[in-house]
């Protein structure tokens, strides 16, 4: 089954309001790579500045602050050494991140913080429900499979305000607590704003696997937000 590729070297599709910079389209990337090969130092510094943030954030999924910094520096060296081989089939950004992840994983192996490759194996093999099955009517219900009670609206107060304040911290902690593969996909898709193709490329997984991991990760974060808001409402109620 062929993997669907972005037409212009996979520019990012923003999926979250915090979406970051899209990858450069194919043409200007080829020019950049050529300039790097010709020793254009400014081009290299520009590249480093553009990507250092995202590389640090991704490295931090695997390692402590200081090790992450090391991993990123090793990555840039490896990028320079690998530049000759870079054929432009992947976008430069996903190629760099792929190098980073391999380096981060080998560091993790040394520190026994490895994310096992099995974490990325077919996630559909494991069954994981997006929502607690108790939320749905059983076969004897009026509408089997239907909601027992409807989920709340979050675009009214106080939920809307919560999601812009304490909710962000709840989401951050929920993401940190995700299984590693889900954390990676949610981070790259919904924090970094990468497209589905770019994430599949960078993590060397299929678009389908990527989607399952995203689905599970997002479902857990949604559940965490819901629980936190119910909790906050209950605490407020009990103070009256």
């Amino acid at each position: 089954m062929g993997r669907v590729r972005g037409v212009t070297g996979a520019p990012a599709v923003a999926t979250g309001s915090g979406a970051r910079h899209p990858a450069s389209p194919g043409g200007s990337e080829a020019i950049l790579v050529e300039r790097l090969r010709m020793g254009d130092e400014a081009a290299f510094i520009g590249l480093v500045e553009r990507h250092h943030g995202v590389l640090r954030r991704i490295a931090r999924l695997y390692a402590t602050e200081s090790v992450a910094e090391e991993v990123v520096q090793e990555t840039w060296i490896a990028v320079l050494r690998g530049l000759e081989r870079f054929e432009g089939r992947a976008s430069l950004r996903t190629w760099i991140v792929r190098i980073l992840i391999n380096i981060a994983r080998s560091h993790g192996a040394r520190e026994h913080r490895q994310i096992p490759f099995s974490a990325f194996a077919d996630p559909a093999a494991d069954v994981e429900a997006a929502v607690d099955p108790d939320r749905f009517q059983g076969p004897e219900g009026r509408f089997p499979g239907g909601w027992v009670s409807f989920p709340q609206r979050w675009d009214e107060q106080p939920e809307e305000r919560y999601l812009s304040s304490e909710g962000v911290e709840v989401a951050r902690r929920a993401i940190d607590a995700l299984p590693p593969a889900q954390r990676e996909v949610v981070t790259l898709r919904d924090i970094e704003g990468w497209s589905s193709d770019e994430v599949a490329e960078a993590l060397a997984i299929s678009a389908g696997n990527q989607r399952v991991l995203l689905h599970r990760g997002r479902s857990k974060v949604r559940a965490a937000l819901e629980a936190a808001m119910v909790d906050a409402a209950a605490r407020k109620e009990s103070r009256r």
Partner: protein
Amino acid sequence: MIESTGPAMHPNLERYYDSATDRAAVDRHLANCPECRAWLADIHERLGQLQCDAFVELVTSYLEHAVDPQVRAKIDDHLRLCEGCRNYRDQVQETIATIGRVGEQAEPPEIPEQVRAGLVAAFRLWQREAVMDRQPRAD
């Protein structure tokens, strides 16, 4: 909210299961209106095409526009009829937006001067090696 169309009190039965609907009032109408009873029966059948517990597993693919057209049509119809799943879909979108805000909060890491200098040095070294590799050997 129930909307009536035409001179008779014909409710928008697609809203029948919405929390804001006065179902008792609609049921009084249904007692006297075989057309609407048939319409509601049709709605029950449509609701049976895709259950809510199935929708919550499809929501990610749906939002990515990665479902088959037939499945998409069933989901769209289900969402017309089901306030619970509309709310759930919207919750997922709010979740994505909230996750995005996590990224906005993160400090853009400064590249320490030492690191920058180290990378520049590495670049220059790499350049020299690359240039040397390209030189014809002076045998």
